[in-house]
């Protein structure tokens, strides 16, 4: 996997943030285009490319969610077409309340704040689940990689995406209609 290779890492879901940063700085310095000012055009081009890859790699790998997304992509595990069924009821209710608020009915606000808080809490739980699964998967890398864990992580990431969109939507609406 390109991003891991660029930083001299073995592919895995758990990375040490400090080590990652150290590797990024080291390699960025090493490939800095200024250091090749007198090299040939091909060399310079290569340095530019490496710098770009290093930047992308660092930005992706330092964030556990983006990292897992990249990892799954490389494993060709695609997002599911179905949103989490157990959330639909609540999402529907939330949309009803959003409609009321948009029509100027302030009594919907407390319900929306509650919903937002629940989703924020859910997001924290999801992140917790993601790291538990990531640790488990990396352990399996010592033997036969457990593909079923990757599928589970796909589910977690999809849920995460869905929930964070919900939070964004409700927050947007809560901020537009600031009560006074």
């Amino acid at each position, binding site marked *: 996997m390109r991003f891991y290779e660029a930083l001299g890492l073995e592919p895995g879901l758990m990375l040490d943030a400090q080590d990652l940063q150290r590797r990024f700085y080291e390699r960025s310095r090493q490939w800095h285009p200024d250091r090749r000012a007198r090299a040939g055009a091909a060399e310079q081009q290569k340095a530019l490319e490496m710098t770009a890859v290093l930047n992308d790699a660092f930005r992706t790998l330092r964030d556990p969610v983006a990292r897992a997304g990249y990892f799954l992509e490389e494993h060709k595990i695609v997002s599911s077409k179905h949103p989490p069924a157990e959330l639909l009821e609540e999402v529907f209710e939330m*949309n009803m309340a959003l409609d009321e608020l948009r029509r100027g009915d302030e009594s919907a606000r407390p319900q929306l704040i509650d919903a937002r808080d629940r989703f924020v809490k859910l997001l924290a739980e999801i992140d917790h689940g993601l790291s538990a699964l990531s640790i488990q998967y990396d352990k399996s890398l010592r033997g036969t990689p457990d593909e079923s864990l990757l599928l589970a992580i796909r589910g977690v990431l999809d849920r995460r995406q869905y929930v964070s969109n919900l939070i964004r939507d409700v927050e947007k609406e809560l901020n537009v209609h600031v009560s006074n």
Partner: protein
Amino acid sequence: MAYSNKVLDHYNHPRNVGSMDKSDPNVGTGMVGAPECGDVMKLQVKVNPETGVIEDAKFKTFGCGSAIASSSLATEWLRGRTVDEALAIKNTDIVNELSLPPVKIHCSVLAEDAIKAAINDYKAKSGVTAKETATA
């Protein structure tokens, strides 16, 4: 993107918006959502248990114009059909009727899924084993 006249008509005058009592044994409820856009759709059918004919259908959709039009059209089509005829409705029928462009096909899929979910809910409630399960 331009909506077809039929979409606009359903969008501006949605038919059968509303909801029915979920706990009524003759009412089947389908709740579906699209992950891409976060849209949600609730569709309900009220079935006559003697004849298996859908007597009433209601929907409420939070979503784009095409999703609203698709579900509005679906409720129109559902009324008077038997449960099994309802399951035969395909999203492509909706696409054709409303002339939906390719980017809006998923909105019609949502409506088909909602029909299936509602019918399956009714069947599960009334003890009929669903012989057809929602595909897609």
